[in-house]
């Protein structure tokens, strides 16, 4: 005999309650899925953005600010270190390259970043979508998320975008031409205009040599990005340049601290969602159990018309399983939507490209809930089946 028509009939009977229960399961599952996926997306995106920056050296001061300003282009007035540090680093046999990064100006709401074409292109690994890299002081490359076109010229503004909201502080007499557009990298640098660092220093009345390649600014530099030759060199340089004049930091140090915080938030959200899931599961089982006395009559009738004990137990069990399955599937869909929408919002806010995806590991809590629910409801259905005739006798 097919138990499904009975199951469906029972579901119809208590439609509202069942939908509510499935929705509760779905919400709890969606929260845990969405949070897990978003946290991973944020970690991956921020780690990718730091990929080109192995070691950053700056004037003695906040290491976190040095990373935020250099890697993520958060506007801040970094202190300057003596320009001789650059020459010292380039002379070190353990240094593959050392390139300055100078921030502080903006145009049309986009940060202007002064660096070398070598660093901006990650030594040829990051391509331009069109045009060419800058070759002179009056040329610039626009990031993929800027609105500037090749051939357009602009006058840089002194200070960040927000510094120029009320009164613009233009560097008068400066015209810079866009000669290339960078391909998308999924990092805050997409929203920047990249120029030779010598040009930014010259604007701020720092004396620069004639040949930009070997120019040494007299005043100083806010940040130098270093690629160490070996892991040993990386730790040695970090150690040597942590002194009274300069500081040195791996962006990974700052990020790992951030990830610990993120991980704590995720753990909290998962506990809350997990508690929610357990509560809903308990409610579903209790509901099943409680409704039995009401349904004892129909169970007896089922037996009376010749249904086997297994059949009766199966109808009870399938009812609960249906709720769990519908809830889990809705939760999967909701979790994916939540992650997708959250990734969109965060991408805009942070200038990082977040790609939300669900891995098999994310589905574990869902699988656990289903498994636990399946076993528990089988037990409850069995108890109910055993108790039902007795109850029916009493009430009848």
């Amino acid at each position: 005999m097919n138990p499904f028509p009975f199951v469906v009939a029972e579901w119809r009977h208590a439609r509202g309650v069942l939908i509510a229960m499935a929705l509760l399961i779905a919400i709890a599952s969606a929260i845990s899925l969405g949070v897990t996926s978003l946290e991973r997306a944020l970690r991956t995106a921020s780690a990718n953005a730091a990929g080109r920056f192995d070691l950053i050296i700056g004037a003695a001061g906040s290491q976190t600010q040095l990373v935020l300003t250099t890697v993520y282009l958060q506007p801040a007035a970094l202190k300057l270190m003596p320009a001789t540090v650059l020459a010292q680093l380039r002379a070190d046999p353990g240094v593959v390259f050392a390139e300055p990064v100078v921030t502080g100006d903006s145009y049309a709401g986009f940060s202007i970043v002064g660096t070398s074409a070598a660093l901006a292109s990650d030594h040829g690994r990051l391509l331009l979508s069109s045009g060419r890299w800058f070759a002179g002081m009056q040329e610039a490359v626009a990031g993929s998320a800027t609105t500037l076109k090749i051939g357009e010229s602009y006058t840089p503004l002194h200070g960040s975008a927000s510094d120029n909201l009320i009164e613009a502080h233009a560097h008068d007499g400066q015209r810079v031409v866009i000669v290339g557009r960078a391909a998308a990298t999924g990092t805050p640098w997409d929203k920047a205009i990249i120029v030779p660092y010598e040009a930014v220093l010259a604007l701020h009345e720092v004396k620069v040599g004639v040949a930009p390649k070997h120019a040494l600014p007299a005043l100083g530099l806010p940040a130098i990005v270093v690629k160490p030759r070996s892991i040993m060199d990386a730790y040695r340089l970090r150690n040597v340049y942590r002194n009274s004049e300069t500081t040195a930091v791996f962006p990974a140090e700052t990020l790992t601290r951030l990830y610990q915080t993120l991980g704590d938030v995720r753990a909290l959200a998962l506990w809350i969602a997990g508690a929610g899931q357990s509560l809903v599961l308990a409610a579903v089982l209790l509901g099943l159990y409680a409704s039995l006395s009401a349904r004892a009559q129909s169970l007896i009738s089922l037996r009376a018309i010749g249904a086997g004990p297994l059949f009766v137990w199966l109808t009870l069990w399938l009812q609960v399983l249906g709720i769990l399955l519908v809830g889990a599937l809705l939760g999967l869909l909701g979790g994916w939507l939540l992650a997708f929408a959250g990734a969109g919002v965060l991408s805009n806010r942070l200038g990082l490209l977040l790609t939300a995806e669900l891995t098999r590991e994310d589905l574990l809590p869902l699988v656990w809930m289903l498994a636990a629910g399946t076993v528990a409801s089988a037990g409850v259905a069995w108890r109910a089946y055993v108790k039902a005739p007795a109850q029916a006798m009493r009430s009848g």
Partner: protein
Amino acid sequence: MTIERREFLLSAAIPLLTFAPFAKAAESLKFAELYKSRTVMGMAFADRTLQLAGKPVDLAGYMAPPLKPEANFFVLTRTPVSVCPFCDSDADWPADIVVVYVKKAGSFLQDGSAVSVSGVLQTGSKTDTDTGFVSQLRIIDAVVKRL
């Protein structure tokens, strides 16, 4: 009911726990015994270090600050990379480092943690494919335990 569910959860959790392969007993290494001589030309591995290459070893040390986020490796040092303001910036530091490649990439413990590492020892110069960094001494397929 609850018993059944709890038992089930427990049995489901067992495969999720990471377990170290107990195939062979690992040799215990010490930082002090890794090298036999330190000359101006560099350092020479001790004979035992060379003998143990390719074999499972245990080594205890301190986690250095992470060089790369979400990486599959970290650096183990003999002494903690200190954050104390009175420590000098010694240019020769650190001679005693071992690069540890873990089985699963991710964020590592707080740096400065004392950990015990079990994995397979590798000697010789090798360039990491992802980062381009050169290392001389590595422990691969490592399992990390906080001490």
